């Protein structure tokens, strides 16, 4: 049974899907969302109930963006710094960074969240006492080029603004890796289902977040192929 945890299949409001479909990378290039808006003005039920192909494509785009948002929120892993700073590298396909900040603000209200990709860094917090006047502010985050600022610079700007530092415990990824391995039930091995849930594309988007999972899946898949080959040779 595939897991649909987190994907709200009942959220059917057109407004929400419009917001999501607009953020799709293809929607920057074509006029599908405009056409959908025109149909909605005339007869919203056509779109709402996915009667036509345009409506179907519109919902598909919305779902793709929702899916990326949901999965990236789940699959990224943070490095924690004493400046109440959580840092990770991401590589999203669609325009979802501001939505990701919304999710993590709620989860870590006292922390600053820093996402970075190859070119830029995106920094945000709900804390009113932390400001970055020299950085450009967009939507709900500060954005900067990676050649302009590095992590040490950011930490130096934050530290003097904090009343106290966060006490970071010793933690290595080994803790997670050992726990992850302890949960695996070999008798239920189902690489196909695991690959469906953790597609390679998503592993790339989460950058380092799923590195261990990807390694383990590859190992298990190789051993499966090896066993199948041995079985074939023996027969």
């Amino acid at each position: 049974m595939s897991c649909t945890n987190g994907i709200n299949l009942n959220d059917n409001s057109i407004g929400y899907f419009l917001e999501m479909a607009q953020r799709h990378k293809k929607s920057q290039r074509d006029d599908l969302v405009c056409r959908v808006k025109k149909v909605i003005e005339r007869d919203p039920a056509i779109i709402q109930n996915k009667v036509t192909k345009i409506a179907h494509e519109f919902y598909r785009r919305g779902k793709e963006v929702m899916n990326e948002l949901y999965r990236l929120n789940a699959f990224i892993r943070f490095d924690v710094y004493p400046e109440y700073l959580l840092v990770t590298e991401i590589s999203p396909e669609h325009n979802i960074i501001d939505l990701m900040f919304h999710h993590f603000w709620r989860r870590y209200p006292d922390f600053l969240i820093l996402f970075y990709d190859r070119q830029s860094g995106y920094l945000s917090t709900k804390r009113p006492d932390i400001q970055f006047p020299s950085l450009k502010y967009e939507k709900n985050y500060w954005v900067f080029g990676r050649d302009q600022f590095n992590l040490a610079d950011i930490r130096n700007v934050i530290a003097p603004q904090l009343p106290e530092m966060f006490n970071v415990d010793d933690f290595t990824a080994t803790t997670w890796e050992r726990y992850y391995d302890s949960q695996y039930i070999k008798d239920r091995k189902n690489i196909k289902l695991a690959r469906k849930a953790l597609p390679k594309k998503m592993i790339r988007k989460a950058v380092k977040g799923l590195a261990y999972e990807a390694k383990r899946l590859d190992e298990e898949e190789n051993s499966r192929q090896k066993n199948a080959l041995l079985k074939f040779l023996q027969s």
Partner: protein
Amino acid sequence: MSSLQKLEVLGASAKYDTCASTASNRTLRRSAGYIGAPVASGICHSFLPDGRCVTLLKVLYTNKCIHDCHYCFNATSCATRQRTSFEPEELTHLFMNLYLRNYVEGLFLSSGVCQNAERTMEGLIEVVKGLRMKENFEGYIHMKILPDAPYYLIKEGVQYADRVSVNCEAPNKSRFQELSSTKEYKNDILTRMAWIKGFKKKHGNIPAGHTTQFVVGGAGESDRELLKMSVWLYDNMLLNRSYYSAFHPIQNTPLENASPTPIIREHRLYQTDWLYRKYDFKFCELELAFDDNGNIPLAADPKLLIANADPQRFPVEINEASYEDLVHVPGIGPLSAQRVINLRKSKIAIEEFEQLKNMGVVLKRARPYITVSHKRQTQLDNFLEKKDIKVAQNVLHEWY
């Protein structure tokens, strides 16, 4: 033993516990310095090579246990297990480190029964209380209620947990006795469930409700027995969800030589359970899916079996059928049935099968059971797989 080793041992000890959902609609207290938030739809943070998701930090507080459940590898009779326990603060720190780095969505805390249920429950409550009060953790917590746990401790526990669960393991007393000689079904399990129901109903505690788990095939029970019990629990104990876990024999347990339950049986049970909870099927309708032994045939989808056993209901006219009739059609779920009804309210008639496909209906399954504008599409390909269609086309080509 180091914390890491304990995590490994007690994590492995909890791996057979099922807890897929992490959805909770609890409102945040937003106390100063709080961390974490439950999500209304839950989140899966990772997936294992067996395809199951890792959502929560799923561990036992201790794997020392006085009970002798024949299927369980934490049972007192299973001598090869390393025995250990967490200190409450040790577990709290481990968990907070994983949560802060976004590895997990919350905590699933279960336990063996060390010495007695009261003492072990106190330990569990110390952990969840520590998380809520000392660490200001506002995220999701699922806590197991141990068999024979006292009333006052359950009452305290439900104040901190989003979800609690008592494991039934078997569908009735006689089956339960085949699995364990140290636990009593009615008193240790059902009475605790009734208390939880009371807390949920009267005090509005437990925002994510309570659940239970069955070991499928451990005591030779039938699917009818399991589903009958689940339905009784849904109706009478306000249970939110039953989980089914296919029995797998574990070395050095009394059932080590028993044959394992096929995983597809677990899947069929979930499908049928879903029909009752989400599709509003009645139990007498579910009965149509059982064979003479009271089991659901593994090779067929239960909804399809029910539809085939009730041919008078079909075909239904898409533009006239009620919601209840629509959800009974294989290939139409609650969401697409609702879309059809919504469209009808907007006075738009469905004229083509293709429209239904766009609306999320699985036409391959639904076609034999529906008409669209009183037209029935009964083509050969309705009943054949793609590869079969090619074979049929080749045969026809050769003939003519």
